[in-house]
């Protein structure tokens, strides 16, 4: 804290208008003070709203606390919350639902996004206009998007079933009421919303490839296929991994869209880990238990991200 005090004393000095040229040493000191003064508030806020709650969550995860009974005696239960979470079969069902959602949404987004980026990179007339138009879905509020897809998926008056039938597909299905279809409904909506994100990233990747590589390949009379596998794909790979990293973090945390679209249903087939966490914490009020679940989820996201970052570093070095 003493460094902050130095910063506090340095402010008035710095606030004077047109002072004489300060001494070299004094200026160095004021730089350091200024650095702490500038970084301090951010660090303090992050400590108060991130580190302190994190520690609190860790502490709660070892108790049987329930937020709807604040006056009850606090019972320390040791690691039993953790063992209960890990032994709970429902959690593994949620984790499977999360894995299904993550794998398919990210795969589809990467494939579609890469395809679109390759097409847009052909620089046809109006390509920049259409790249902006395609971006619109990802800027919208996911919760509101989820609400309206509920309307589109409605089998009677929704347009989704009618569009599918119009393009020759089957009729008379219920996207959100069917235990096999509704996991795909959330994949579909997420893909619709976030494909543009991947497209934008990969388009930047494609544009960063130096043209001389292709010119050299041209001289060697390489086929289009060879050029794609030997130049395009390896050069874009770091961008693909970066897209994977961002989508992984975001979709693992995903709550708003699915909460509105299916609220975990029907039954619990679309109950992603974060939806389950909300039910445990804010509907059943099992605060201690859900804190343990929260910590496990955070560790999982953090671990997955670290692995992806390592992979990204390896890909970049090549």
């Amino acid at each position, binding site marked *: 804290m003493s460094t902050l005090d130095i910063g506090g004393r340095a402010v008035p000095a*710095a*606030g004077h208008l*047109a*002072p004489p040229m*300060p001494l070299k040493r004094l*200026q160095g000191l*004021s730089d350091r003070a*200024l650095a702490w003064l*500038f*970084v301090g*508030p*951010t*660090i303090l806020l992050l400590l108060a*709203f*991130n580190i302190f*709650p*994190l520690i*609190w*969550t860790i502490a*709660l995860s070892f108790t049987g606390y329930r937020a709807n009974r604040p006056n009850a005696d606090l019972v320390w239960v040791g690691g039993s919350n953790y063992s209960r979470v890990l032994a709970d079969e429902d959690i593994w069902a949620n984790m499977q639902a999360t894995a299904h959602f993550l794998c398919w949404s990210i795969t589809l987004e990467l494939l579609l996004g890469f395809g679109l980026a390759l097409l847009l990179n*052909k*620089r046809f*007339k109006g390509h920049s206009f259409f790249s*902006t138009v395609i971006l*619109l879905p*990802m*800027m*919208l*509020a*996911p*919760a*509101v998007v989820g609400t*309206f*897809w509920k309307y*589109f998926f409605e089998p*009677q*008056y929704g*347009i989704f079933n*009618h569009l599918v039938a119009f393009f020759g597909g089957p009729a008379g299905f219920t996207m959100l009421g069917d235990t096999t279809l509704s996991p795909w409904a959330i994949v579909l909506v997420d893909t*619709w919303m976030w494909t543009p*994100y991947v497209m*934008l*990233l990969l388009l930047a990747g494609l544009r960063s490839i130096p*043209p001389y590589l292709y*010119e050299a390949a*041209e001289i060697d009379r390489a086929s289009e296929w060879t050029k794609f596998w030997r130049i395009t794909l390896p050069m874009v790979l770091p961008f693909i991994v970066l897209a994977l990293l961002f989508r992984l973090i975001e979709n693992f945390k995903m*709550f*708003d869209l699915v*909460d*509105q679209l299916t609220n975990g249903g029907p039954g619990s087939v679309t109950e992603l880990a*974060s939806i389950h*966490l*909300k039910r445990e*914490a*804010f509907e059943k009020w099992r*605060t201690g238990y*859900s804190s343990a679940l*929260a910590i496990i*989820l955070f560790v999982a996201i*953090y671990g997955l991200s670290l692995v992806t970052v390592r992979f990204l570093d390896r890909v970049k070095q090549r």
Partner: protein
Amino acid sequence: MSAVLHPSGRGPLEPTRRAQWLAGILVVGYAILSLIPLVWIVMTSFRTPQDAIAYPPKMLAEPSLIGYVNLFTTRSRVSAEELASLPPPTTWYEGLVRDQQMILAGPSRFADRYLNSVLIGFGSTLLSVALGTLAAYAFSRFRVPGKDDLLFFILSTRMMPPIAVAIPVYLMYRAVGLSDTHLGLILLYTVVNLSLSVWLLKGFMDEIPREYEEAAMVDGYTRFQAFVKVVLPQAATGIATTAIFCLIFAWNEYAFALLLTSGTAQTSPPFIPTIIGEGGLDWPAMAAGTTLFLLPVLIFTVLLRKHLLRGITFGAIRK
């Protein structure tokens, strides 16, 4: 777009015209398909509740402003005799309400929720950009001990699932009386946006040559004055871009708003899905609310399009 006109030195690599046509058709096809939901929302907002749940769905329906009227008002049903005994409606919207055999009961809460979104969005954006600018400048120019670790720590705060943070924040806010207050949400959104703000702005600051400030300091400015008078104007575009990204996040945020607010400080995202009419959800009113809610973001997206990539990757990719 003939190959000759292309100045990028890609002459022999220019895609053939046929490839360009094919790519164009596929992309336009995707764009149209992906815009159907958006267009449908806007169209629904101009329909009557009956048309919105017609089976099969109508492609075109008689336009109506009932959705917007219902969005901003509460109404109550009256009997035909009672309706006939009333004096004629004084405003156009009262007329629309009477056509549904109802009378106006008062304003709805939508305007309040929208205002909350604006207040909380702008409040948190202002704070996180101000704090982010200071921190980013320090990280960009000064030797801060443990700089890389601090920066990574700031980024990693974004990995916490919002629900996980919400548990202790809920308890903390309940203890200090910040539950369901504007200040509570403003502070929380400020903190969530700080990681984006610091990372993006650091990138922008790094791009401003140090020589500018050094020249100013040789002229007798202090470091602080040089920061205010030289660096800030240079960073204006970056600050504006960052501000818009923070605003969009706060505007769209749902999980914290749902769990930490219930009335006074509730923002639009948790409110819009709960708009109910007679006999179920009032889709045209919800569509109207959604249209008004999405409009600012659509405008910002078009304004931001050149910096979008940078914003969504936390400054990892600059163009």
